[in-house]
């Protein structure tokens, strides 16, 4: 189950890459910028901007009703048939996030772009959490290796060690999220257990010493955007070799996706962007000076 394949990705590992986003995640981060990635099943969404208000869905699809000026209401509990939705909605404003693709189909798409990979580009598995679908993710990596495609994956770390270990044998590059070392805060804001994430990280580094790992931290206002938080992570990473570290800037682009999925938009109203930007730059300066690589 995936929700997107994107070509010409430049930020998901070395070189020019094709990123496949697997659908489903064990975490529920309050700030998630890919809300469509969280559930393991296909989800019906309605994008108001793309809707031409033709009413075809009201006539042809069960579970969709008019809401006057405000558009349509979707009874999400009614299982919808993706083909019927595609038939019914001319503009694609009503659409599914999530589709089943075979390993073959995905690797064919990746291989089509292989001339762009050069020596270090390739396929990246992202999500959701790719190793939350361990068999599928590993099959993708195995097939990529068979086709001589460079492999990378992006994980939150809250996965089974067995899956991660198997992946390590097939990966050329790993991106590992460490969001915070504050156990209580992490639990309350993401639902994840710190111990699992750190233990997996340590074991991975021990098992696959030469494999380069990029650790990333999304800097979330009010959660971990303090020097103290970032310092702790940098300190934790210091003893490991072959680890680089990067901060990701917080943004609020996903509002439309939350709305399309019929969920409340989780972003705070009063966000002082300028102050955050300043803070982020300071943190980035610190990381550049202190972090490995």
């Amino acid at each position, binding site marked *: 189950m995936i929700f997107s394949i994107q070509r010409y990705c430049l*930020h998901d590992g070395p070189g020019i890459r094709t990123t496949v986003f697997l659908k489903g995640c064990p975490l529920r981060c309050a700030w998630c910028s890919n809300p469509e990635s969280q559930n393991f099943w296909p989800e019906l969404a309605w994008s108001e901007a793309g809707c031409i208000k033709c009413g075809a869905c009201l006539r042809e699809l069960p579970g969709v009703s008019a809401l006057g000026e405000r558009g349509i209401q979707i009874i999400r509990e009614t299982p919808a048939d993706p083909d019927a939705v595609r038939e019914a909605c*001319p503009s694609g404003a009503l659409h599914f996030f999530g589709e089943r693709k075979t390993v073959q189909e995905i690797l064919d798409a990746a291989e089509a772009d292989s*001339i762009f990979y050069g020596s270090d580009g390739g396929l990246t598995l992202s999500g959701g959490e790719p190793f939350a679908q361990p068999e599928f993710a590993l099959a993708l990596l195995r097939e990529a290796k068979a086709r001589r495609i460079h492999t990378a994956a992006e994980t939150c770390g809250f996965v089974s060690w067995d899956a991660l270990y198997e992946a390590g044998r097939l990966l050329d590059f790993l991106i590992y999220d460490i969001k915070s070392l504050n156990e209580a805060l992490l639990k309350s804001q993401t639902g994840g257990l710190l111990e699992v994430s750190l233990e997996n990280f340590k074991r991975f580094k021990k098992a696959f010493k030469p494999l380069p790992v990029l650790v*990333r931290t999304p800097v979330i206002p009010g959660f971990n955007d303090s020097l103290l938080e970032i310092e702790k992570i940098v300190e934790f990473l210091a003893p490991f070799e072959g680890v680089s570290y990067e901060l990701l800037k917080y943004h609020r682009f996903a509002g439309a996706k939350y709305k399309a999925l019929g969920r409340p938009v989780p972003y705070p109203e009063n966000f002082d962007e300028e102050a955050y930007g300043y803070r982020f730059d300071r943190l980035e300066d610190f990381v550049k000076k202190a972090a490995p690589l």
Partner: protein
Amino acid sequence: MPILHLSPQEEKLIQSGGGIAFSSKSHSRLQKIYDSFKDSKPAVDVQRAIYFTESFKTTHGQPLILRWAKALYRIAESIDVFIDEHQLLVGRAGCQGKYGLIYPELDGCFLESFAKQAQTRLESPFYISNESAEALIEEIAPYWRGKTFYEGLVASLPEDVLKITFDPADVFTSRYIVNETASMRSALQWVHDYKKGIERGFEAIKQDALEELRELDEFDPKDALEKAPFLEAVALLSDAIILWADRHSKLAYEKSEAESDPSRRAELRKIGEICARVPRYPARSFHEALQSQWFMQMFSRLEQKTGATISNGRMDQYLYPYFKSDLETGAIDAEGAKELLQCMWLGMAQYIDLYVSPAGVRFNEGYAHWEAVTIGGVDREGNDAVNELTYLFLEDKREFPLNYPDLAARIHSRSPERYLYEVAETIREGSGFPKLINDEEVVPILLSKGASFPDAYDYAVSGCTEVRMPNRDTYTSPCPYINMGAAVELALNNGRMKKYGDELISLETGEAESFKSWDEFFAAFAAQEKYLLRQAFRQQYAVHQLREKYFASPLGSALHELCIRSHKDLHSAHIADGIDIGYFDLIGFGSAADSLAAIKKNVFERGIVSMGELKEALSNDFRGYEALRQRLISSPSYGNNDPYADSIAKEIDFIAASYASKYAKSLGFDMDLRYVPVTSHIPLGKVVGALPNGRKSGVFLSDGASASHGADANGPTSILLSNSRTKNTAYKNRASRLLNIKLNPSSVKGYDGLRKLVSFIKSWRDLKLWHLQFNIINQETLEKARKDPESYRGLLVRVAGYSAYFVDLTPDLQADIIMRTQHQM
């Protein structure tokens, strides 16, 4: 965006002159020169036209090349010459400030209406003084009535070709279906063998001609009637350009006498010396070489209208010996060399390409002109040609804030890494310059045309994406644009177009409603495409026969070995050993491919709409058919590496490539398939009704070989792959495909971003695509996307770990991202 690569922001900056600051060390001189013309409105300068016409009045009955040389001499001795304040290079073809010239021999029949509308027309208006307007109307236009190339062309076209070219009721109005461009300029883009002029000088060129003249056999009619006038013209032309330079020398000395500032006085004296020396004698220094080139370039502008593009050739090659020896002797340093080059770019910025006819101006909107400077590539032996001067040109491009010259970098499989990185860095820091031309595609094609390896290796970029082999290329006729949007409309409507009602425009291929299968429909389309090709080739055949009766180029011929050897003017229909490569453009390739794919999918496969209903929707410009339109838009489309649409696009390409290949022999020259619209996809789109890809009536067609607007949802790699996939590489009758790639500034940020850009360029090179240029997306683009989401559906906003289509975002967030992007720039 067309060719020029003017980002909207740049265009605005250049036209308003707003806030451009020079950052190089010699900035105060450059800033002052720039300030001297930045606020001037482009003005029509009629001196060239007046003296050219006066001379022509007195030379009736003489050989055309001699008449042309005499006219040039008249111009050289009569037009005002200027030494611009602060400038180090001199020589301008018109008045101070920004100026455009008139070439009445070409399209003088439009002059009266032009004189009246020049200041108020919508596209590229020009200032014209009352006296100049009067001269155009009273003196110039009357003489040329009935003598212009345009009128000659109209008279020589067969009726059916005329009908599709011009409005039969008013031959001064273009139909924009199979559009000629031969009457808008005397020659295609051109590049002179500047090296010859710089190294030998015109005194030697003249003496060679005179010597040969003395040896002619007066009893041999060919010697008397063909060779003699040619040689006399070359000698006279040499005198003319020497005289013109000499007038500058005298003026510089005069000015130096009156100059109170000692450093400027020394500069003026030096200008005086240099202008007395070049282009008469061989240049001895970098400064002299540049001045010599600039005189040739500007005199070429006075000679004829070579479109927007008299190219500069391989400057990093022919200037290198002078640069190197001046560096060694300490006569110049890198900064000094850059200052001189930038003086030249500022001169270029003041010459504005002026189109008189309504079609001409619509095809070249925005005062477009692009004087290509070629760097990199390989030398005549096939070895990499990059040198220190190559890097200086790149450095200059990163520093110089105007978009002149049009820098073109040749790339090949052994281009050094440093070169690729500096090219990428320049693309990133400027706004996409340089454009890239691929030796791995161009050289084999030139070889297939019969060029020798050294000549093919030594090509220069000329014009927007074209290439020229100096001393080998001889084809000069500007070529037709073929409207592929119209081809679809004609196939749907049995040879008719909505704009022209019941009039049969092409040929009847059957009522679309009667087609039972996709194959039947495609056969009708193919017949329409072939019909347009047929008319285009007939048109070009006529142009080719006609041009030598209307144009001559003594300067171009004097600088061309084959012309000298055969004593033939460059415009002659055939020159021995010349390689004649013309081309025709398919305009709206993506629009046509997507329309056909939409018909195949929705009418013949899915059956969601009947042909009749589709035509009804098109005829109503989709009013009341929005749902259908949305379905059509979401059909497979070209540019996404989707075999469904790409295979149709390849068929469209095949029809044209195989046609060109079959009939090149009887034409006597190559007509190669090209996809370069300049801005013609806009006027050509205006005459085309609604199309089955969801494009509404009158909207522009797709640009070059790019995807239809908004149809490229899969990113830049797919656009390259679709281009590669849709080429018919077994045919040699193919030329450039203009390829614009938009990138988000964040994607090229930092060393990592640079490395990825280099990697992308290498893949493009390995795919053997002809041309590539980048647009680093700027704020304006996002602004437009916000106002016109439909045309920007494919615009992805990419941030690490997240991506979304820009148009799907809420207005507030769009504003947010627009702000962010601005920060990133």
